[in-house]
């Protein structure tokens, strides 16, 4: 499998120079499963949120796109309650736009962009989408609420150690995240409490 060698390269790249606000690592002992965290970009309702994602790498990768979904609930027109993401690069042509020259890093970046710029014309969650289109304020409110409720716990956990003051500092965020991953067992329990 090309998958293994490619994944290895991707992972080393990801850890060497992670894109801003993104971290990604291999799930324990699993070759085909990765975890990632995205930091909600400043200026979006997801700001200060940290979102966990699950990445399943199919056997045929990179000839087939990885399957990515949000583990952290997120209020977004293109992400459903199961965390599935409606994004063209996550699908094979002709319907989708996946190509083997994309990689996990670029996908995560695309997802980050999608978070910042929802695409209400291709909604997965119709109600959220119409809210986004016609009642933007309400949407923002809800999204922020969800972020605070579901995505900020981790941050708080992290925040105790790392000054969360600079959400804008992408590098810093990435660094946090990586540490966060190490802490993940701890993080999980607090997150579930609320």
């Amino acid at each position, binding site marked *: 499998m090309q998958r293994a060698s490619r994944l290895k390269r991707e992972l080393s790249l990801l850890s060497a120079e992670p894109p801003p606000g993104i971290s990604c690592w*291999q799930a324990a002992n699993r070759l085909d499963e990765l975890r990632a965290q995205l930091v909600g970009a400043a200026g979006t309702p997801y700001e200060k949120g940290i979102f966990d994602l699950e990445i399943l790498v199919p056997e045929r990768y990179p000839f087939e796109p990885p399957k990515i979904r949000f583990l952290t609930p997120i209020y977004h027109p293109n992400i459903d309650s199961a965390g599935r993401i409606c994004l063209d690069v996550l699908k094979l042509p002709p319907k989708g736009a996946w190509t083997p020259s994309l990689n996990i890093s670029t996908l995560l970046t695309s997802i980050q962009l999608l978070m910042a710029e929802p695409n209400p014309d291709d909604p997965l969650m119709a109600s959220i989408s119409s809210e986004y289109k016609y009642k933007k304020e309400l949407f923002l409110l809800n999204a922020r609420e969800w972020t605070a409720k579901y995505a900020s716990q981790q941050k708080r956990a992290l925040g105790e150690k790392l000054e969360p003051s600079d959400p804008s500092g992408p590098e810093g965020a990435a660094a946090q995240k990586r540490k966060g991953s190490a802490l993940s067992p701890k993080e999980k329990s607090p997150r579930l409490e609320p």
Partner: protein
Amino acid sequence: MESSDSSDKGSIDQSEAQRQRQLDRLDREEAFYQFVNNLSEEDYRLMRDNNLLGTPGEITEEELLRRLHQVKEGPPQQNNDENRGAESTEDVSNGDSIIDWLNSVRQTGNTTRSGQRGNQSWRAVSRTNPNSGDFRFSLEINVNRNNGNTNPETENEPSVEPSSGEDLENSQSDSEIPRSESPSVRQPGSERSASEELTTEEASPPRGQRRARSRSPEQRRTRARTDRSRSPIHPVSETPRRSHHNTSSQTLDHSSVNEVEGSSRTRQHVTLRQHTVGTEMPSENAVLFSTPETRPVPQAAGSSETNGTSESAAPGQRPPTIVLDLQVRRVRPGEYRQRDSIANRTRSRSQTPNNTVTYESERGGFRRTFSRSERAGVRTYVSTIRIPIRRILNTGLSETTSVAIQTMLRQIMTGFGELSYFMYSDSDADPSGPTPNQNVDVSEPQNGGGGTSGNESADVSSGEVYEGGNEGGSTSGARREGRNTRGSVTFEESGSLPFLSLAQFFLLNEDDDDQPRGLTKEQIDNLAMRNFGESDALKTCSVCITEYTEGNKLRKLPCSHEYHVHCIDRWLSENSTCPICRRAVLASGNRESVV
């Protein structure tokens, strides 16, 4: 590895082991590239086409080498087998085996296989032309009468040609019905079909007509041979079921090339097209079922072009053998679209400016389209059957499906004659029922002299109505054939027939519709290829994210993006765009024209 933070205990050993594994892997990977680089283009193709390359790092060089040798040696061995005779291979006895065989053919390219079932034995040979991607398959079926001793000869005859269904049909009929007739005796009257088949030469006048009209000399010959061959061993009896005979006869008769075109994978429906060519443009061939001029048993060892070579065996000695030659070629996306659309547009019949007549019928979810066009005195008949793939997959060969498949096969097998298309009766599907309606509709328009058909059909119980498409006035003859063919052909249980399996194979072989479209091997091979040289600027293959090393084989797409051959070939086999710029690798214009 980062993940190991949490589980550091066991991870030390693990990581040790893992490191070792990775090192091994890297070695293998390197060896892989080395190996690929050293392959000649031909060998590379051979291996790629047969899916023998595996993945870098996964497979050892030795293994690759072994596979290569295997592949290379494969064909000759198989030939030998063929020549040696069926005995060795005969073990395979059921219809499924053909499918297995076909599948193995897909993987290995050239194969020969034979088997025996009941009193019929079959031998199938396939060759794949790595360059063109064409697939040629021949199937020969010999039927031994139960009473008749199986002649060793039969088995030995390496006839390679694959004639599938027809033989079966014949054989079946033979086998089913024990007939006692002496070889020579044919009953001319009622059982025309039988007689027709057999009697070419001696043929009664009517037959003669028939033949006369369109048949080339060769065809006749064929028949004659067939007759001979059969007669000694199997007396041709009148078949109670004419259909069988009919079918067979037709097939034999028509030497015209029929092409069945497989639909491209992408299509939603599998289209089997038969192209009978009166004189047509040879251009389309996707799947070609051609009855080569059937020579009774082509002994020529599997060579694809069997016809010429193999006549040596004395026909008389052999049991009836029928040979079918089938060529399959993948239809490129879009290739036939135009025609399809024409067919789709016209419901029932319509006359297009081109003198094209299209008939369309639908039955049990299978759409059949027949169209005829006449241009400059040349008539072209195209008949298309579309079967939703899913259906077949889901149902397996359920009854409906099998009926439909049968029908389709029959058409394929039978349809060698121009006329037969018309005839192509649904009635066949239900042996008993004449389902003449459709046929009728169809038939009328086509025949210039449609009128004739009626008579003949009368003989045949099922409504074979049409036989119409005669070319240039040979109507009467034509219709005859038609009717013969069309009789109620009964298939034995569908599942059991190899040729049914065949059809199934072709259907199954079509990839799922939802799959993205890819390029054909030919198309891929036409793309530029070069070796990476030391002087080139350092670049990385974006598929495997590995830097090129000297000697790497690179393929350059029209957009001038480059990749490792083995990386891009795999992508292009399922997709048609450049991974980097997403530009279509083939200009859309090319698509239609590449043939």
